[in-house]
Structure formats: C-alpha cells, structure tokens
C-alpha cells in the first residue's frame, strides 16, 4: 500500500556548513542521516525523523535544523493536519496509535491559571537568605491525636507511624526499568539520596545495583507483580500500589517482548522475549475492601515498618475513591493527573481519559477534610509538575508533596519528543539498548537532577518567604494564598479559591 502519510519533520542541512563529519549519523538512532558516496554528500530520510533534536545539538557545525513539515492541507480547525494524519495512519495499519510522554493538548494546564500571594504591610515577608524557612515534609499517616502519659515526666504514648522524610517536597515518580535503562534509574537514585528525597523504581522490579539506594527508594507493586518478592518489598523505604496512572487510566500496560532481554526478564521474573503484560486491574482487587486486603498483606509482609502508598489516576470520582483509600489503611495517596506521562500509551487514552490534577487534588483534599480523615493519609500530586511554582500551588491546594517524572527526564536531556515507546531514545533515556544507554552518564545526569531540585528548593523558599510563611506545613491546603485567573465560577468553586482581585 502506498503511504499517504507525509513526513512529520523535515531535516534541513546547510551544505555550506556541513563538513560531512557524520556525527549526525552516529547520533540519530532512527537512521535518518546517511552518506551518499556517489554524490559525496549527506542526505536524510525525513520520514524517520521524530524531532528529538539530538543531531541538532551534536552537529559541530550547527548545520542541522529540524522543521515541522507544514503540509498545506486546507485550513480547518476541526480537521487539523494532526487529525488527518491519525486517520490516514490507522487506515494504513489497522492498529491503535501508540505514543509516549504526557498528553499534549492545550487548555488542560490549570497551574498557569493560579496565582500566588505575597505579604504586604499586615504581615512581613521573610527573606529566605537570612531566616530559616523549612520545607521538610513527612509523608505517612498521622495519628488523630497525640496521647501522653502525664505522671511526672511527659511520656509519649502514641506510637509513631512509619513516615517518609523529604527534605524537599518533590520526589521522582515511578519510572520502570525497561521503560528506561539502569543509568537513568541510577541517576535518579543518586539525586534522591543527595537531595534527601525518594525515587520510585516503577513496576519493573529492581536491579541489584540499586539495592544500595534502598533508603531512598519507593518500590512499586502493580497488577503485573513483576519482580515482587519479599526482599524487594523490604528493601525500599515505602511500597506503592499502583492502581492507575494519569497517562492511561483504566488500562494496563505492556512492555513489548522485543524489549524483554535477559536482564529485564530476570528482574521481572518472566521468560525472555514475552510481552510483559500489566493487566488493567489487580486481579486481587475488584473492590475497595480488596484494596485494604492488599495494603495489609504488604504491611504484614514487611512487619508494619513502611508506609504503603496507593497511586490512582485522576478520574471523575477521584474524591470518593480517595476517601475509600484513606480508609483502607494506606498511608499515602498518589493522584496522577491527566497530563501525567508514560513510556507508552494508546494516544486516544492518553489524550482523552482522566481529569486535570488541579481539580482532583482540590476535591480530594476538600473531601478528606470534610470527612475528618485528612490526617489519615498524605497526598502526593503527580502528573504535570514543571516548576517550583507548580509545586507551591499544588501544596496550597492541599498536596503534601509532588512527584516529578517528565521534569526529571527533561533535566537529563529528554526533549519530550513523545517517542519513548520505540525504545530508541537518542538521548539514552527511554531505551534499554546497551549502546544507546551509554549516552546517559549517571554521574552527570544525577548532577543535573540535583541542581534542578536545589534550584527549586531555593525558589520554593522564596515564594514561602514572600507569603510570610516559614514552614511548608502552613502552606498545605492554605488556599487563601491562591487566586484564579480566567476561570469560570464553577472552576473556582471546585478549586475553592477566589478570582484574582477579590
């Protein structure tokens, strides 16, 4: 069948600058660039280009530019070229369209419609350079009340429940071995240790090299139960049950068999070359009391020494679900918004299922407070956090901490080309190919991550100081510090904030 699909991108090479050094051939993992010996010139197969920008950055002569191929279909707001391309692609293949990273549709980012407050006159702002501002956060169930024995010396009777101690309320979201390579996980792990926070190894099991970072590790238990064994459960600081993820709520996942090489097979405990399937549901959880059962099974298996988190995708009735989770014995609820990213998801799901994290978060926090059980769980917001401002806004809406995934990958070089599922990520991230993986040096990548978190830490303190707050817990759920801009009445009501100017 002749393809009616035009190349998405056009590779422009300035032949005057190009000295045919062939660096681009080396760097491109999609086989775009090639050298034509007869003509002695560099040429490109534009249709293969995914616009990852790798060759652009590495061309020593800056001779390459990648352009979007603006196919001049007749202008149409409904039948955009993206839509036309998708239809044609499916007509040619008969398959569902796969994509990577998070939803790229406009109008779903509400962070930018929230504005923060600062003190003027009635309340002094604080200069974080001079005065202490605390951003340490503890995640885990808090008791409803502290009980003390008061005969003579004050003695604590309440037992402290296990907590995660975060020196900055930002953690690295679940990214599994298989979706990325060991270098990436290693970089995340080192940065988590250095910054006093946590990384999450995702559902693909844990490579033995990472065991030494156990104190800063959250292990995940997903429906596929890959790599889950007693040692795995005990090595981390916390366990996360993954029910769903923002990029693909309600559906499972699979790591294609060609990616399941010896090491991955070993870690996931599956035969080499088979698809690694994560069923859509956990087959021991068909109802909320079953969730409770799994939460307690994990606690039993680890002697009640670690907090158990439950991660869900933000969907229409998230508040009710969260309320159920809070009562299930879980210590932490992770809510992943519609913009949350993934290594691979059907595009139609990624772009159409779920709701923005801002709304889910606001309604969950409100609901748990109304029910008087907000103290029972910590809330972690995930999916779409790009900056320290997003972090601060999330906490003001009611989160205890956030997860970042895409932001961490971008820090390491990712250009959000959305082709993670190909396994050929030219930046050495979303690939397990041993050669390409070498492009990511864990030492350097962790430096980038540490710098990012340090910078965010400074900015968070600046913003807190501006509000006259010297400890992050005074920001949590403090929606008085937020105002909305360009939001409808009902959006404001759900976020429970006022419009700017009022």
């Amino acid at each position, binding site marked *: 069948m002749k393809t009616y699909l035009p190349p998405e991108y056009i590779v422009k090479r300035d032949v005057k600058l190009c000295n045919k050094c062939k660096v681009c051939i080396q760097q491109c993992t999609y086989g775009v660039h090639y050298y034509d010996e007869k003509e002695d010139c560099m040429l490109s197969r534009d249709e293969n280009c995914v616009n990852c920008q790798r060759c652009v950055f590495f061309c020593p002569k800056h001779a390459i530019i990648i352009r979007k191929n603006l196919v001049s279909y007749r202008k149409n707001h409904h039948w955009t070229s993206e839509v036309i391309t998708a239809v044609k*692609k*499916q007509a040619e*293949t008969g*398959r*569902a*369209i*796969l994509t990577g990273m998070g939803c790229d549709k406009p109008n779903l980012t509400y962070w930018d419609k929230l504005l923060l407050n600062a003190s003027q006159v009635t309340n002094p702002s604080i200069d974080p350079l001079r005065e202490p501002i605390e951003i340490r956060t503890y995640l885990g169930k808090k008791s409803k009340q502290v009980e003390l024995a008061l005969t003579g010396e004050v003695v604590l009777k309440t037992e402290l429940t296990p907590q995660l101690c975060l020196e900055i309320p930002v953690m690295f979201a679940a990214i599994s071995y298989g979706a990325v390579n060991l270098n990436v996980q290693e970089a995340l792990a080192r940065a988590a240790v250095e910054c006093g926070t946590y990384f999450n190894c995702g559902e693909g099991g844990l490579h033995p090299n990472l065991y030494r970072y156990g104190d800063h590790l959250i292990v995940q238990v997903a*429906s*596929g*139960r*890959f790599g*889950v*064994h*007693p*040692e795995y*459960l*005990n090595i981390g600081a916390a366990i996360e049950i993954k029910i769903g993820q923002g990029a693909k709520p309600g559906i499972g996942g*699979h790591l*294609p*068999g060609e990616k399941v090489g010896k090491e991955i*097979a*070993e870690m*996931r*405990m*599956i*035969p080499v*070359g*088979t*698809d*690694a*399937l994560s*069923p859509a549901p956990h*087959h*021991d959880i068909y109802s909320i009391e079953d969730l409770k*059962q*799994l939460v*307690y*099974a994990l606690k*039993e*298996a*680890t*002697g*009640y020494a670690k907090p158990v988190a439950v991660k869900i995708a933000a969907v229409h009735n998230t508040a009710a679900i969260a309320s159920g989770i809070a009562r299930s014995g879980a210590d932490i609820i992770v809510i992943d918004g519609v913009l949350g990213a993934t290594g*691979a998801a*059907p595009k139609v799901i990624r772009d159409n299922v779920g709701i923005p994290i801002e709304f889910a978060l606001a309604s969950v926090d409100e609901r748990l407070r109304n029910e008087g059980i907000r103290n029972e769980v910590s809330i972690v917001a995930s999916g779409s956090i790009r900056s320290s401002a997003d972090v601060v806004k999330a906490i003001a809406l009611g989160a205890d901490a956030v997860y970042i995934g895409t932001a961490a990958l971008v820090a390491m070089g990712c250009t959000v080309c959305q082709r993670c*599922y190909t396994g050929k990520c030219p930046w050495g991230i979303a690939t397990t190919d041993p050669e390409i993986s070498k492009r990511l040096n864990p030492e350097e990548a962790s430096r980038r991550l540490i710098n990012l978190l340090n910078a965010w830490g400074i900015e968070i303190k600046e913003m807190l100081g501006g509000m006259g707050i010297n400890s992050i817990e005074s920001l949590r759920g403090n929606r008085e510090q937020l105002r909305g801009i360009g939001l409808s009445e009902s959006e404001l009501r759900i976020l429970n904030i006022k419009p700017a100017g009022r």
Partner: protein
Amino acid sequence: METPTETLKELSRLKIEEGAIGVNALEMRSYELNALIRDLVKKGFKGLNLYNVYGQRYIGAGLSGDITFKVYGTPGNDLGIFMNGPNMYVYGNVGDGCGNTMNDGLIAVYGHAGDIVGYSMRGGKIFIRDDVGYRAGIHMKGYRTAPTLVIGGCAGDFIGEYMAGGIILLLGLDESRRHETRFIGTGMHGGVIYVRGKITHLGKGAKMMDIDENDLRVICELVKQFCDLFNFNSSKIIKQEFTKIVPVSHRPYGRLYT
C-alpha cells in the same frame, strides 16, 4: 532452637509439641496472629502448628526459609502471599488469593480454594486437593523457576488468564463431573496448562495441543507428588487422557499498536 522465653510461656496459646510449636489461634486478629508467627520464626522455631484458624489472613506473608506450617481450620485470604520458601499444609478450605505472588515454597490444601489461587506466582508449588474458584493461576510467570499449580478438582472460569510462565495441571478427579471452565488461558503468552479430561472453551490467545513424551513425564511427576500428599492412586489418574494448552504467541500485543 531457642527455648521458649518467659513472654512466650505467659501466652497460654502456645504449646511445645514434637518438633514444632503449637499456636491456638482462636479469636486472634490477623495482625496478632501474624505478629506472633513472625516472632516465633525469629526465635528459631521451624515447625508451627496453627489450630483453630478462623479466617485469619496473610498467614505466612513474606516469610522465607525452611519452615513448616500446619494450619488447621479455615484460613482467610492471601494465605502465603509473597511467601518465599516455607511449606504450608492446610487441613481445611482456604479463601481467595492463596499463594498470591508467591516466590518459593509449597502450599498443600486438603480441601478447596477460592479465587485467584497462585496469582502472579513465580516459583514454588501449590497443590489443591479439591476445586478452585475463578482465575486460578492468573498471570503466573517464571524466569528460571517454573511455578506449579496442581488442582485435584475442577476450576472456575479464566484459569491461567494472562499466564506468562509456569505449569498448571487441572485433574478433575471427580469422575461424576465434567469440566465447565470457560475462557481457559485468556491472554496467555507463556507457560502451559495440562487438563485431564475434556475441555472445550478456550480463551483468546490460547490453543490446544496434544501432549508429547516430555509433557507426560512432567504430568506423571506432578501427579505422583499430588497422590503422595493426598493419598490417591496415581496409576488410575494417569490413565485418562490429557490435553495441553499453550499460548498462540509470546507477543499477543505485538500487532496491536502503531
């Protein structure tokens, strides 16, 4: 083995028996019983006989090592979840999730089991004397070791769903009944299911094959172990015909996406 400490003696629930310690689980909450079990294991007891078990969950959760449990009563869900080595003999029926995500060891149930027996197990063996519920052996997997699930009776629907590795042997020993299991091996992409007797309703992704010599060897070995445990006559069982169910492909999702 350490001698029972003062605290243990205080507990009237405990009784030293031959080569084991007896625990009267009557009216104990799940977490109390499991905490006690962990404690006894830590103290070095290798044999634990649990009496009067009524629905306590997670018995043996995550335990490793050479320990033998004898469970009398009706244990609750997730018996032996994440278990990594112990042998567990249950003299009674078990609830759902028996052997959930089990890594190694043995579970033998002298009775029937509920749903999702051996969910995601990747090592060890489970023998159920009688029937099992729905989705037995769902998502069993295996890398170096092959987890094994042997069922003496009949199974509910979706046996071997998503199976990625390991062996399920379904014996159907009650000659008066036929297999009514539907959707056998739905989404299966690894491992093998052997069925004694006639089955019809296969799930998507599974196909039927005749057994070969190698299969027969495996079956014989498992039947022998089954009979040793539950006192059946193995030669009679072997005589019947067996079918083998295997995945159509190891890559069921290989052609779904572009």
